[in-house]
């Protein structure tokens, strides 16, 4: 188990390094500099700025310096918000995004797997139809439609919940964004659970259990462990999807999370900020995949033994 963890972690490290290198090169080789927006910049001032941000050094040296700082957990100064470092900006934004993501994940897992179990237990009945409905709904009505509709219904119509803002993380502000973020994920988890569970239920070893007279609830409980595996391997992808979705949700609901900073950074050519978000997101996805792999191995002895 430890050996597996080490080897997976060792495999992830070069991936992360290459991502850092790629984003760095993309940013530096792109046409247009970070200060192009401010058109009439005095050459003297621009030269000063370039020196402050170390853009006057050779590329390799810049990269080396960036890497050295990165290893120490320092993402450098923001190009756009000149008085802040990227770390300061993200220290506020990251927890907000992570919290929303975690909430969405929990909703999706509980609601989705419950729906999936209902679907698998009545393959031609109401459960399966429910899953089909939710799945289609979750895909056909994407967050960018759901979010404004929820705002209209709960916020402007019922005046029950705020339509936007974070308000220091008050729960009323979190309900709508978390729900919106969770919807497509719930649909995916529901379908996956249903498919996996139906699959497992038709396997010979489940027939063995039935043949030995185990009651249905025990058979379901038993099958669920195997059915968990494909759902689990989907979660790595889901983490990436949540991060993508959070960009939309943070924009619509006006939440100061990672997604917002990423968009603002991209619009304002704030290279250090964009790089930091990309690297953090990539690292999170890799970390999540690693955790998923390890849990998988823990659950499935065949994988554990390699």
């Amino acid at each position, binding site marked *: 188990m430890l050996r597996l963890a080490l*080897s997976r972690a*060792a495999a992830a490290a070069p991936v992360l390094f290459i991502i850092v290198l790629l984003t760095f090169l993309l940013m530096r080789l792109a046409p247009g500099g970070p200060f192009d927006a401010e058109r009439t910049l005095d050459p003297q001032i621009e030269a000063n700025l370039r020196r402050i941000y170390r853009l006057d050094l050779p590329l390799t040296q810049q990269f080396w310096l960036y890497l050295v700082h990165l290893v120490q957990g320092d993402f450098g100064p923001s190009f756009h918000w000149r008085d802040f470092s990227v770390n300061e900006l993200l220290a506020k934004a990251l927890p907000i995004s992570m919290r929303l993501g975690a909430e969405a994940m929990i909703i999706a897992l509980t609601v989705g797997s419950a729906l999936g179990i209902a679907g698998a237990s009545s393959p031609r009945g109401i459960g399966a139809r429910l899953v089909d409905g939710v799945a289609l709904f979750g895909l056909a009505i994407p967050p960018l439609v759901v979010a404004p509709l929820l705002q209209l219904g709960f916020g402007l119509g019922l005046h029950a919940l705020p339509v936007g803002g974070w308000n220091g993380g008050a729960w009323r502000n979190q309900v709508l964004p978390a729900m919106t973020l969770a919807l497509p994920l719930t649909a995916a988890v529901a379908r996956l659970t249903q498919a996996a569970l139906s699959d497992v239920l038709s396997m*010979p070893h489940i027939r*063995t259990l039935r*043949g*030995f*007279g185990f009651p*249905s609830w025990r058979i379901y409980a038993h099958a669920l462990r195997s059915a968990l595996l494909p759902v689990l391997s989907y979660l790595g992808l889901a983490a990436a999807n949540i991060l993508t979705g959070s960009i939309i949700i943070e924009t619509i609901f006006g939440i100061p999370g990672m997604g917002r900073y990423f968009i603002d950074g991209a619009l304002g050519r704030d290279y250090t900020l964009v790089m930091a978000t990309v690297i953090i997101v990539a690292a999170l996805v890799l970390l999540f995949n690693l955790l998923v792999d390890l849990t998988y191995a823990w659950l499935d002895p*065949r994988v554990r033994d390699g």
Partner: protein
Amino acid sequence: MKQGEAAADANPPSGPARGQDGAGGRILCFRNLTVAYGNANVVKGVSFSVARGEVAALVGESGSGKTQTVLAALKLLPPQAAASGSIEFDGVDLLSLSQKRLNSIRGRRIAMIFQEPMSALDPLFTVGDQIGAVLRLHAGLSRRAAARRTLELLDLVEIPEPGRRCHSYPHELSGGQRQRVAIAMAISCDPDVLIADEPTTALDVTVAARIFDLLAALRKSLGMALIFISHDLGLVRGVADAVHVLRHGELVESGSAAQVFQNPRCDYTRLLLTALPKPREPRPAPGGPEVLRAEGVTVRFRLRGGWFARAREIKAVDGASLVVREGRTLGLVGESGSGKSTLARALLRLAPLSGAVIFEGEDISRLGREALRGLRRSMQLVFQDPYGSLSPRMTAGDIVTEGLRVHEPSMSRAERDVRAARALEEVLIDPALRRRFPHEFSGGQRQRIAIARAMILKPRLVVLDEPTSALDRTVQIDILALLERLQERHRLAYVFISHDLAVVRAVADDIGVMKEGRIIEIGNALQIFENPREAYTRTLLAASFHASDI
């Protein structure tokens, strides 16, 4: 008496076997059982009964409905199947029983062993847990008592080191051990009826023989009724008290073993009884030229290591030497993992090898890819699985002529079509069917198509890798006859690989016995069968012709 039986159920089996007191009475009665999938009936009005303590053999070829019959008894049919008629167990109709009462019978009074020991066990739980779960459910044992009893059971089914093995997961056990675990699970609650669905078919012959002996011994000591399902009538001779023969879902013959074997009423039964292919007539000593000679052929595979695991090397074939002459057949026998298929691929340069392979006087073991391509038309390969060896997206005609597209690229489409028709005709398939896709043919027909594909290039050497193993006995005999006719017509040299000694005896002039990558014995077929030199060969022979007369 009913009371006493219930009490006996709750206790682990000990003391005198229960089967004796009720001997003679019917325990399980199938009456007019029909199993339907939509409009198709796979079991058609089958009626027979099983007495207490009796061994009943249910025999039939694939698709005869034998498995469906017993699955219906435990209501294990898939949801789209419908069973009608009645199956009476100890006075109650199983088909109309409530789920709850059925569950108190399943596993406890009727237990089942399935064909595939790998997939019948849950891969995520240790075998000890799986047996223990049954004991706790039915015998009401505590976790600790169940664990103790599990060890006894594993010991009873002759698994070495049960204390260690009960913590193993199914994938850590060999096929035979898995089947032993399945048996331990089935006998754990001392059932009245044990159903064994081809329990030895997926196993190697020597392993199968031991499992078969174990089952017979356990039945004798525990005294339960045993329903033994098999496609091989010969296998059950000597153990079965009663034999029921199924064909296309209908019961064609039913009677005591003595009567069925001595004096079969039905033609089909007679066919099954004689279905063992006949040994090949010994032919004059080799005179023809050598087609293939292999000297010290070794095939190594490197198992790649991970970041923290070292790479390993295994020898799949270790120093094999053999000779095949024109118009003759060399049989290669061995159990799974003995390296016979790898050797076959190496002989055709389809696996990396060291050593020498001399084909028609030329050493081909060092030839480059391009030089080999020209030689490929003279050496061909036929695979075991007629379902996997034909591309599902090509028509029979396209499959048969693929070799022509490689070796005669200038040939026109029309001409290829003519050649396809001719090639199919030679293997006795209606050429009009050449536009059809593989799934529209039966297993035997598909194997004929595969043979036609190999023959269209007029090869000198054909390697046949278990060409009949996936087929029913009656179909096997046809395929073997076809192969023999083709050999005589085209003076072909065959390397015939099989785990089935009965089949090898029917085709081979010479035989090589393989074990753990080595050819341990090679020589004239007759001599090997009559007078084997190696102990392993003797075991193999004994296991293959177990319980059936040679």
